[in-house]
């Protein structure tokens, strides 16, 4: 078991974390490249970067958007706060980072971390129930939309149980192993699923500013390519 824990904490963590970071970085670079390319291709460079920035901020701090579908929106915000804040500011995680890199930062009091974990777990299942209960959401859901809530719930549940051995019916070490392996799977999945929005969100409002500014000759180049240039309408 010790070997397994060492593996999960060591090479497995490093590998999965690297896949996530590099995968997301690659997507950021591609998207940013697309934005610059669209900007260089068009004749209309008068782009409102400020409006895109404001809209991005409006979704990162979505106070204005809470009125639409209130329960769902508030749950979604709670979920996102929990899923980001809990692992990053949890004392045990910061201690691990400090031990290996020397870096450390402010941490949550243990009771807050507990509450946030439970809130996240509750929110994840509430969102899932919301998805199942909403006709339009069911109509557009893919397998990953149902699988990811379960996947994300595992490290939170196992983490909470590992931090509260007296509540845990399972032995400590296997719980910790499940915690670390499932977190690693989340990292692995991130660049290949909708989780990639965790990195891409800052860029998502820019396309609609830029995308309508087409390259000046693109429609004609398209018909030339398919050999239909000069044909009557």
């Amino acid at each position, binding site marked *: 078991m010790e070997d397994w824990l060492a593996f999960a904490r060591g090479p497995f963590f490093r590998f999965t974390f690297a896949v996530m970071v590099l995968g997301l970085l690659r997507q950021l670079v591609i998207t940013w490249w697309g934005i610059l390319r669209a900007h260089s291709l068009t004749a209309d460079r008068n782009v409102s970067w400020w409006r895109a920035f404001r809209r991005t901020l409006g979704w990162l701090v979505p106070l204005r958007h809470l009125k639409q579908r209130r329960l769902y929106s508030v749950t979604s915000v709670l979920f996102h706060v929990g899923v980001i804040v809990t692992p990053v500011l949890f004392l045990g995680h910061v201690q691990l980072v400090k031990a290996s890199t020397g870096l450390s930062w402010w941490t949550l009091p243990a009771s807050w971390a507990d509450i946030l974990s439970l809130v996240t777990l509750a929110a994840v299942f509430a969102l899932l129930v919301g998805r199942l209960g909403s006709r*339009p*959401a069911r109509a557009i859901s893919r397998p990953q939309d149902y699988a990811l809530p379960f996947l994300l719930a595992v490290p939170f549940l196992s983490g909470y149980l590992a931090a509260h051995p007296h509540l845990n019916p399972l032995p400590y070490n296997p719980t910790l192993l499940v915690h670390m392996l499932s977190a690693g799977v989340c990292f692995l999945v991130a660049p290949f699923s909708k989780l990639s929005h965790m990195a891409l969100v800052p860029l998502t409002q820019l396309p609609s500013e830029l995308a309508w500014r*087409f390259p*000046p000759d693109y429609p004609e180049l398209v018909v030339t*390519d398919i050999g239909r240039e000069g044909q009557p309408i």
Partner: protein
Amino acid sequence: MSARAAEETDAVDPQPTLDAASPRASTRRYSYYVEPQTAGDRPRRFLQVMAAVLRHSAYGYWLDLYSRVSAKCSRCADVCPVYDVTHDPRDVPCYRSELILKVYRRYFTFAGMARARLGKPWELTDAHLDEMAESVYRCTACRRCTTECPLGIDHGLLTHLMRHILTEIGLAPKALVVAVREQLEGRTRNTSAIPVAAMRDTCEFLEEELVDQLGYDGVRFPVDVEGAEYAFFPAVSDFLLEADTLMGNAAVFHATGCSWTIGSGNFDGINYGLFINDRYLRRIIRQLVAEVRRLGARKIMIGECGHASRSAKDFVPVFGGPDPPEVVNCMEWTHRMLDQGRLVLNPDVITDVVTFHDPCNIARKGWIVDQPREIIRSFCRNFVEMTPSGSENYCCGGGGGTVSIDEIRAFRTGVGGKRKADQIRATGARYVIAPCANCKKQLRELVEDHGLGEVDVVGLHDLILKAIEIPGARPAAERAAAGLQAG
């Protein structure tokens, strides 16, 4: 009318209505008429066009990004006026966008191609294209969903792309194609096929009408005046249907000393390219700019028309060539003149309840939202807002070119415009001001089909014409009194 009834009326009729050899041939394969299809492998041609589009534009980056981030939260369904009425999953904006994202992922990404080699791949079929063709014209391109997507997915853009590619393979509503054909290749060069002589006659008639109404001979419709500051492009249908709007425009231009002209070479601001195809969009823009250059005008003034304004404002800088002329909407001009005190409107003439419908194309991004309201408040005593309004407005239900597709009227008024009809009823307004030729047509049909009763759908300049004070002309109050007696 219920959604179900509307759907039944619009049920797809597979029978060609005319002999395919006839030049007027159409088939009703979808809820709208299309021209006879070229035989051949449509999926292959679709992919060929899509590949070329991705090669020559930045669309690929957006499709890539949207494929990755889409969270399928269905918030877009909450704000879509069509879904709101039909509750049909295929009307969820995100569902519609997925129709093209799926094609992109399958044929244009490494993962999609690799997966296709490993297993039994999904293939683009005629049935998928039929679904797409039907779906993209159930959308009114109002882009409300775009503002509600947490991940910024521009569903309007993806619908625009699908319509573009479908048009390139010959799949577009006949009504829109015919209008574009006349505008770009016909003899009259405008969507309503109005000959120049008829346009000139109309202008003269409107001048005489203004003399009658104002008791003053001075307001002109200048045609082909070289070197004017503004070349004026209303929706050309205004010459046929919206005499009061045009007279209001001319009266304001006269009273404020605007240097303007109508060009006999091209006097149509309509650009259905925006709704079906970027190639047409580009050519219509270039035709517009060419006329401005011919006239030696410096700026473009668009009349009361939402899509004409947006297509000129957004796409003259994109497709208009070097040093593109500035684009102004006539309401911006009127607002500025009012602000500077150069326009006098009598606040006692319009006493009925008035409401304002925001055309999506000028309001969604907040371009023209406050200006018309300030104008209205300056002379209409009883102004009532619809809720929601401004950049969060509901579409009239005829957006995205669908208003010109007469065969889907039952869908447009029964489904697309249902929310708008409810809004109008709730205001209890006598006048619905809709500064857009397309919205006006749709709203009048809404008033009829929903039995909204004594509601007049008018342009903003129609009411301005009633209230404008021009030195030397009969005062507005006197004109109103005379109008009441005559009425």
